[in-house]
């Protein structure tokens, strides 16, 4: 679905490259965490996949298209297959929840009757029914992010890119957002999430691609966040609120110990050679 082939990206001449010969492949229907320190190249990966940037070297393939040869007038049709969510939500403050979501359909020329049907549907999916007429400033951060996700998902994209979607949210709210992303993933949408939120990465046991200085440091199925070091805020994240019941995955009641350094899985992981194929998304 998304393939990076030896991609390098240098933003300014002479500057340190944001990506430096990075390669990775993400299959259809996967849920992938993109982790790494700030400046490791996570956001650049997402921008390249959206073709907001072009690689300095190497090739990026998204949904079967070679983005290096994609002509600029075909970029909109590429982006209609990709939903994007950001840390800062990027909602239009002067529009209501409904209008914010409808905006994505309006500007791509969808007919009005379709908007009238689709928007309430997707708002229900993200759990915002009854708040259609609110404006973003009347919503909590978590609700705003749900609006943003609804907007990203309303076109039923085959790929959802999330750039630190829980970065501005408290742990419990983040849990709801993660839950929502999981459910979107379960419908067959490929989800790529750049994050610093070690707790969820460790809990969800999805594929983890760790970037460091523009290269893939580790590409691990069922991976964890750091190199086996539990993050200090892990505990806070694992005190789930009342949302427990609707979670698609089973959160551990007890804190699951992070695999020790000697564990085979991790030892394999750090070599950065593991290529993981999707396991459970047979229908896609």
């Amino acid at each position: 679905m998304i393939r990076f082939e030896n991609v390098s990206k240098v933003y300014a001449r002479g500057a340190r490259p944001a990506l430096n010969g990075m390669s990775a492949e993400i299959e259809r229907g996967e849920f992938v965490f993109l982790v790494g320190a700030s400046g490791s190249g996570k956001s650049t990966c997402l921008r390249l996949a959206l073709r907001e940037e072009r690689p300095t070297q190497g090739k990026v393939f998204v949904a079967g298209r070679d983005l290096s040869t994609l002509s600029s007038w075909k970029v909109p049709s590429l982006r209609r297959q990709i939903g994007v969510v950001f840390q800062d939500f990027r909602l239009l403050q002067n529009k209501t929840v409904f209008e914010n979501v409808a905006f994505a359909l309006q500007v791509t020329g969808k007919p009005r009757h379709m908007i009238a049907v689709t928007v309430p549907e997707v708002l229900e999916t993200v759990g915002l029914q009854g708040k259609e007429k609110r404006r973003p400033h009347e919503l909590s951060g978590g609700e705003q992010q749900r609006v943003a996700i609804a907007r990203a998902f309303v076109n039923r994209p085959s790929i959802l890119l999330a750039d630190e979607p829980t970065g501005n949210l408290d742990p419990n709210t983040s849990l709801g957002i993660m839950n929502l992303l999981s459910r979107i993933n379960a419908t067959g949408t490929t989800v790529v999430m750049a994050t610093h939120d070690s707790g969820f990465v460790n809990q969800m046991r999805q594929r983890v691609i760790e970037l460091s200085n523009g290269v893939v440091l580790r590409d691990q199925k069922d991976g964890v966040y750091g190199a086996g070091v539990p993050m200090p805020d892990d505990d806070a994240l694992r005190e789930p609120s009342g949302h427990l019941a609707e979670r698609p995955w089973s959160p551990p009641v007890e804190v699951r110990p992070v695999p020790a350094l000697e564990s085979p899985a991790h030892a394999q992981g750090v070599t950065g050679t593991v290529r993981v194929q999707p396991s459970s998304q047979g229908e896609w």
Partner: protein
Amino acid sequence: MRAQFILAEIGSGLRRNLAMTISVILVTFVSLTFVGASALLQLQIGKLKDDWYDRVEVSVFLCPIDSPNPTCAGGEASPEQVEALETLFASELGDEVETVYFESKEDAFASFEERFPDGYNGTQLTVDDMQSSFRLKLTNPENYEVVNDVVTGRPGVEAVEDQRRIFDSLFLALNRASLMSGGLAVVMMLAAVLLITTTIRLSAMSRQRETEIMKLVGASKLFIQLPFILEGAIAAVVGAFLAVGGLWLGVKYLVTDWLQSSVSWIAYISEADVLRIAPLLLLIAFFLAAISSVVTLSRYTRV
């Protein structure tokens, strides 16, 4: 859906930048008024030429009874000399001269009396104070020099006069006014382009977030840019309509109602002529706006 959405975007854009929108309207209004005035002056010149050049003729004045002119040393032009000139117009100048009309001094006196029944400046003139003349209508009025060369100095000819000369200075004045108006129009249009560019840039900046989201959800470049382009274009076209209205009123009150009634023997431009140049003004306005939009947007809303 698309049209409605784009219209709503345009409306909000125009309202948000109301002051700028108004200034765009005013600047295009003034600049296009100058363009229109220049065009109307040209039309007026054309009208006068059509009207007068059809009527004006080359006059060949024949020697009166006592003329100081050396070619008239033999006294009044004799019937033989008149006949010789008639032959000349028919033969040598046959290609240049379309019609010949001989006005005898009696005819001249008759028309003089008709115009000044109480005498001219208190003097009562007689038939002998008049002079006979030939009125020549040329196939091509531009060929006056040919006729002049052939006829001047012939026996019995006192003077050859091209009536068009009378109008030359008037046309020169009108032409200069038209040029001046055109020059001002160019300056004002430059101001209009710069102002439209600035307006669109402001509008694009104030809607940066919308534009950014539009790009991310895959709106086409045209869809993103169209509201901005149309915003500029609408403001400019409104300015053009104002210019047309202003010129229409100007022509109505200044030319039709005032000049026409005070100096009635001239063919004037009319309100219909304003409507004739209206499409031109509207087109200019639209292209001014469209070109400045495209230039600005290629920089500010790149996909």
